[in-house]
């Protein structure tokens, strides 16, 4: 801590609480000194501060002490009065304005770093002019009645030797009507020390006269009280002082002119004069006065007796009405005497005495205050007296380095009392506050000091601004620094400065505040600070800096719309004022989403559409695996070629082709709520031409490019006059908060190295935003997998431009976006090669062969759809099975595309399954006659299809219980679509093996003719196995190869059926087969169905723009369903006539058993001669599948049906015990049956009486095993089917 005396407050007090010397001089004296550019007082002023006057002083005690530092304050008599507040205010304002102008040049620089501020020494943190300001502010309060330290101690009467009758002049000068009011109205003792000074001007006065006058003076006023001052010894008046003593006191005049007529001797003389005046006259006079007063006061007030008396007297005084009405305490009153004693003691640095006097008077005042609280106006002045004493007491405590607490208490008390006084006490409270704050600062209590400054802000903005700024500096000085508060108070202060048009100061404070708020994330604060400082810079005409600051607020999406509008409007206004285009790197409006950056370009991979370019590379790669030449093949491919041709450096960069554009997708986001129009958005590129020697390129690439605008350095052309690449320019408007993906392109026209450096755009035609890509990782869409990790972001935007190549363009015509499942469409693939060099060896691969099947030749184009699919057109195209599995379609070898010719190729599309399907086509082609890095290219096409659900079919096939070759087919159709109706047209079985026939008339299947949305339908068909098996010699195979198609509609009888054997239906079926039965083992015993339907009515025509003409539904690998692997039939006569009188009847039967599964089955037949009760008539498998095979019913059967029914339902009790027939022959046999084969077992029964017998009392036990020796894997038992045998008594 600094010693109180050496602290700034100590110095201040030394200067301010010091004896005042009143100067009275004649006009001629002034004239003398005006030659130096100074008034008389000003001339003397620098010599009134004595750093080591070394005068012995003895005040109250007997102790002598020596005064070291001492100051005299010189004032003209006319100035010794309370200054006019308005004038003072103007002076203060002038001072601030001046200071502001002085700082002006610094404002352009960047705000200081916060670390720099903190590392500055304390004295440099606050601007120096604050000291002056505070001094001036305190001076506005000088010369009040009650403060004795402002009362003149001495009077200096000055007369020039040129004056007429100088002695009279001296007398005249001390004339009461020219004296200040203080002396006249009795606030102070008019009897003060007088000193007479005669000024002799060496330039134009004679020495004789002067010495005469001096002796005259000495005789009149006394020898000691008179002095002679000789000045202006320099005749020429051009003396320049090395360290001009006046410079610091008079700042507004150029320093070299000051005191130009004063020689060094003159200055020494002045110095001596003042020293003598102070030490010989002023100090002894004060010393004496202090002693006098002290004695007087000791006599009246000190000691217990006097104390009591004083109390009593004060009480008594209360009874007498106060009649003076003027100042209560005139100089002769005891209180004033004590005050004078205290102040004089203070000025003489005898703080002990000062303190004791102040304490004494303070108690007096306190008492008075208690008694006189009703005295209206006088209370205020009285309080002032009291508080001022408190204040002085605090200062005395401080300066004498005594009780800290006391000092603080006194100051606080004084301060708050002044504050209570309201407006009248404001100035006093300001001074008190300033002192208090200084006191706190001296004690390192900066935080408290700041709050004091804050409290003395008052209402006047300028004053408040200065005080707030001082408070802010206090916050920096606290340990640890309170930077938040610092910033806040700076901002507050800046606002106040702005309110009183001190823009320079406002900028200065905000500039400092920015160093605090620079990295803050408190958005409103940041915006506020930057916006306002920007505005203010614009006011002072520093538009560049203004723009720089305003840029920071443009990304203000969180602000209200109104605020954003204000921000933008002001920003653009300022920009307009600068009258030039500003290029701003990293402009935040609009915001560029770098993660959205996608570079799309064609190297050997070309894309048919935007969508296809965005597809993941791995999908394409897996698709193209088969068709592009593999890397490992011995042939030199393009990769090896490239590596041979080019240094390694270029292998790393992407390759693009001259004349083909590189597209960059970039997302722009408007952070604001108001719409913003962005114009002239384009890429910034550099194209370095390939020189013959590639090494040259390693040097700094000289940019040889021409942008659309040559204002930016990047796009400037340097070499040639023509542009080596073209850039696209995009204009768009972003409404509030909108994001827009913008496609920018650059098309190089020469070979070389192309670099995409960044993007630029314009805002309202005057702001050019530039964004460089380098710093951000960009994902190059088409970066090859093998160097994925090696690619730096810069590399991704760097391209090797190679010579122009043919490029195939392809499109798929008539491709709908929405389809129904099963929808069969006819599409045309159109391929074009615009360049002159031909391409050859076209190959195509399709990602979903199930969906797409390329046609066979170009001629198919001519045929009409869908009639071309129908039968009987004489088409002889045989179903081709050419390696479909690879799904690579090679175009005929002779196809070569060139020039304007286009190739049209038919493509069949069938929507196999509902859902969203991405179809990928990749077409490989090779360039002819081009010796280039690239030997081949691929065209990639990508389409998305939405497939709506339509019909869903399922089939159930169950073997007929009676006929081994016949099967019953149940088809369940459900219309799964939401609103569409379908007509079913045709059901076909695939292949020649299965014949199909209707079981019911077409009309009865679906009377409404079309299947409504959500409707389900079941219908039944019979299929017949027409396959001739080597093992079978079935008689029922007599039927000719039956038809495989059934027409399921009645109208248009002449309409032909669809030919399912031909492409494309056949080929689609092939792929369906492989898809549906992928997991299944190949089972020859399955049936494939194709159902062909038509959309009858779409309730929502917009959903499917062009109505599908034909839909095909394929159901493959439908297996014959039964719970056991066996099917068998009992063969034998139906009706037998037998004469039972002769013998029992023996009937021979034959059982044909077929093993329908693919495993070896071992079957044993077990016959029962009695009917099992429960299991009697229920052939398990038949009923379960929901249909009952009704055999053709004969007349006889009908007759006996009742009997049979009753027997089946509840057999007669008589039959229970004795079966009507017994199984004869072998009763149990075991036969192995090979997979998918049949065997015959002879059976025999013996019947004892005529009747109808149900021969179902047998069981088939089967066991399946993988191989003959293997352990059985599954086994089961089948109950026999009912077989009715009628035995009649023969006649």
């Amino acid at each position, binding site marked *: 801590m600094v010693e109180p005396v050496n602290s700034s407050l100590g110095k201040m007090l030394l200067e301010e609480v010091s004896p005042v010397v009143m100067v009275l001089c004649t006009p001629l004296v002034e004239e003398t000194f005006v030659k130096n550019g100074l008034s008389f007082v000003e001339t003397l002023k620098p010599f009134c501060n004595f750093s080591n006057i070394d005068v012995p002083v003895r005040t109250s005690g007997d102790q002598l002490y020596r005064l070291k530092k001492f100051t005299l304050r010189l004032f003209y008599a006319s100035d010794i009065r309370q200054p006019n507040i308005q004038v003072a205010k103007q002076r203060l304002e002038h001072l601030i304005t001046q200071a502001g102008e002085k700082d002006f040049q610094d404002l352009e620089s960047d705000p200081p770093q916060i670390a720099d501020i903190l590392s500055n020494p304390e004295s440099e943190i606050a601007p120096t002019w604050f000291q002056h300001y505070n001094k001036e502010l305190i001076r506005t309060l000088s010369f009040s009645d009650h403060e004795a330290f402002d009362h003149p101690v001495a009077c200096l009467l000055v007369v020039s030797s040129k004056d007429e009758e100088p002695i009279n002049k001296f007398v005249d000068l001390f004339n009461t009507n020219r004296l200040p009011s203080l002396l006249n109205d009795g606030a102070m003792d008019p009897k003060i020390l007088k000193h007479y000074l005669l000024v002799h001007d060496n330039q134009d006065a004679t020495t004789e006269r002067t010495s005469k006058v001096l002796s005259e003076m000495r005789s009149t006023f006394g020898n000691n009280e008179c002095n002679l001052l000789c000045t202006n010894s320099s005749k020429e008046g051009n003396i320049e002082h090395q360290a001009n003593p006046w410079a610091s006191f008079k700042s507004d005049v150029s320093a070299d002119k000051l005191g130009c007529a004063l020689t060094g001797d003159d200055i020494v003389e002045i110095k001596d004069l003042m020293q003598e005046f102070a030490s010989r006259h002023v100090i002894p006079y004060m010393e004496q006065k202090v002693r006098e007063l002290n004695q007087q006061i000791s006599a009246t007030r000190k000691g217990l007796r006097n104390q009591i008396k004083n109390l009593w007297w004060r009480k008594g005084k209360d009874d007498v009405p106060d009649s003076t009405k003027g100042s209560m305490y005139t100089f002769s009153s005891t209180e004033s005497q004590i005050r004078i004693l205290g102040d004089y003691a203070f000025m003489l640095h005898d703080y002990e005495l000062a303190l004791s006097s102040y304490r004494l008077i303070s108690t007096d005042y306190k008492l008075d205050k208690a008694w006189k609280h009703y005295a209206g106006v006088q209370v205020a002045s009285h309080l002032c007296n009291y508080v001022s004493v408190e204040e002085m007491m605090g200062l005395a405590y401080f300066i004498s380095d005594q009780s800290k607490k006391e000092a603080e208490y006194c100051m606080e008390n004084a301060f708050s009392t002044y504050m209570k006084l309201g407006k009248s006490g404001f100035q006093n409270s300001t001074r008190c506050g300033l002192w208090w704050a200084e006191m706190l600062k001296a004690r390192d209590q900066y935080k408290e000091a700041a709050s004091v400054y804050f409290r003395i802000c008052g209402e006047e903005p300028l004053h408040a601004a200065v005080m707030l700024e001082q408070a802010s500096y206090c*916050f920096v000085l606290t340990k640890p620094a*309170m*930077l*938040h*508060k610092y*910033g*806040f*108070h700076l*901002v507050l202060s800046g606002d106040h400065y702005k309110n009183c048009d001190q823009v320079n100061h406002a900028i200065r404070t905000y500039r400092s505040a920015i160093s605090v708020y620079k990295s*803050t*994330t*408190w*958005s*409103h*604060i940041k*915006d*506020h600070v930057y916006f306002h400082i920007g505005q203010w810079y614009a006011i002072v005409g520093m538009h560049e800096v203004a723009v720089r600051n305003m840029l920071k607020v443009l990304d203000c999406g969180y602000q209200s719309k*109104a*605020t954003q509008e204000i921000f933008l409007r002001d920003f653009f206004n300022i920009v307009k004022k600068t009258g030039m285009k500003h290029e701003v790197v990293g402009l935040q409006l609009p915001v560029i989403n770098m993660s959205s950056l996608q570079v799309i370009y064609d190297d050997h991979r070309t894309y048919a559409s935007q969508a296809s370019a965005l597809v993941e590379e791995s999908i394409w790669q897996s698709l193209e695996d088969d068709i592009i030449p593999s890397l490992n093949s011995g042939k030199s491919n393009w990769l090896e070629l490239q590596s041979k041709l080019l240094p390694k450096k270029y292998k790393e960069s992407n390759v693009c082709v001259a004349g083909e554009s590189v597209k960059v997708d970039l997302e722009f986001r408007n952070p604001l709520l108001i719409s913003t129009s962005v114009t002239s958005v384009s890429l910034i590129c550099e194209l370095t031409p390939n020189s013959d020697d590639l090494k040259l390129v390693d040097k700094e690439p000289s940019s040889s490019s021409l942008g659309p605008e040559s204002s930016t350095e990047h796009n400037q052309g340097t070499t040639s006059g023509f542009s080596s690449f073209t850039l696209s320019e995009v204009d768009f408007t972003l409404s509030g908060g909108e994001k827009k993906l913008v496609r920018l392109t650059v098309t190089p026209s020469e070979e070389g190295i192309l670099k995409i450096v960044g993007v630029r755009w314009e805002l309202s035609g005057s702001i050019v935003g530039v964004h460089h890509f380098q710093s951000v990782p960009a994902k190059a869409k088409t970066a090859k997998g093998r160097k994925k990790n090696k690619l730096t972001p810069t590399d991704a935007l760097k391209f090797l431009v190679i010579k122009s190549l043919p490029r195939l363009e392809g499109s798929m015509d008539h491709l709908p976006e929405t389809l129904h499942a099963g929808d069969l469409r006819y599409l045309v693939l159109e391929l074009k090669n615009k360049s002159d060099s031909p391409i050859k060896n076209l190959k195509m691969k399709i990602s979903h062969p199930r969906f797409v099947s390329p046609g066979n030749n170009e001629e198919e184009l001519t045929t009409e759809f869908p009639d071309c699919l129908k039968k009987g057109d004489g088409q002889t195209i045989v179903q081709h099975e050419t390696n479909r599995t690879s799904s690579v379609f090679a175009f005929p070898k002779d196809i070569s595309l060139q020039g304007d010719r286009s190739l049209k190729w038919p493509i069949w599309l069938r929507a196999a399954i509902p859902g969203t399907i991405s179809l990928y086509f990749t077409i490989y082609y090779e360039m002819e006659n081009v010796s280039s890095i690239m030997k081949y290219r691929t065209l990639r096409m990508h389409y998305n299809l939405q497939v709506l659900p339509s019909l869903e079919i399922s089939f159930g096939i169950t073997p007929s219980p009676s006929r081994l070759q016949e099967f019953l087919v149940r088809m369940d159709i459900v219309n799964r679509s939401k609103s569409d109706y379908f007509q079913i047209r045709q059901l076909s079985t695939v292949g020649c093996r299965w014949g199909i026939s209707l079981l019911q008339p077409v009309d009865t299947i679906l009377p409404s003719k079309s299947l409504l949305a959500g409707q389900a339908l079941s219908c039944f068909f019979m299929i017949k196995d027409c396959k001739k098996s080597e093992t079978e010699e079935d008689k029922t195979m007599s039927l000719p190869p039956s038809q495989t198609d059934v027409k399921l509609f009645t109208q248009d009888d002449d309409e032909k059926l669809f030919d399912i054997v031909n492409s494309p239906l056949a080929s689609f079926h092939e792929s369906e087969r492989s898809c549906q039965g992928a997991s299944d083992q190949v089972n020859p015993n399955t049936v494939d169905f194709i159902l062909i339907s038509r959309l009858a009515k779409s309730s929502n025509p917009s959903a499917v723009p062009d109505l599908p003409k034909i839909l095909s539904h394929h159901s493959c690998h439908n297996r014959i369903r039964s719970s056991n692997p066996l099917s068998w039939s009992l063969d034998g006569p139906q009706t037998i006539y037998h004469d039972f009188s002769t013998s029992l009847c023996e009937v021979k039967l034959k059982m044909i058993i077929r093993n329908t599964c693919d495993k070896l089955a071992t079957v044993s037949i077990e016959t029962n001669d009695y009917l099992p009760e429960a299991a009697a008539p229920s052939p398990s498998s038949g009923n379960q599948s929901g249909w009952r095979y009704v055999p053709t019913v004969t007349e006889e059967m009908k007759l006996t049906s009742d009997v049979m029914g009753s027997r089946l339902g509840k057999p007669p009790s008589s039959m229970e015990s004795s079966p009507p027939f017994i199984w004869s022959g072998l009763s149990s046999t075991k036969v192995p049956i090979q997979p998918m084969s049949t065997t015959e077992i002879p059976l025999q029964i013996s019947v004892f009486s005529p009747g109808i017998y149900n021969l179902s009392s047998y069981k088939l036990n089967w066991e399946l095993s993988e191989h003959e020796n293997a352990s059985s894997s599954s086994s089961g038992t089948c109950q026999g089917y009912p077989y009715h045998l009628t035995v009649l008594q023969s006649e």
Partner: protein
Amino acid sequence: MANTACFIIVGRNDIPIYEAEVGSVAKREDAAQLHQFILHAALDVVQDLAWTTSAMFLKSVDRFNDLVVSVYVTAGHILFS
């Protein structure tokens, strides 16, 4: 009597995590930044105080004119002002 309030949660390094203006009266247009300034400035006081007291709720740690700042400090020194 202040009728408006501002609630801010401040995380590490004085970064505001959450911000809400509460209050029924028609706001001054500069209320948002004023509140931010005051709360931001109060951080200094809070940072001093948070280490000297074990209390988590610091009532009226700072004030500016008629706006009073009260802070709830979590154990991890997340501030709810």
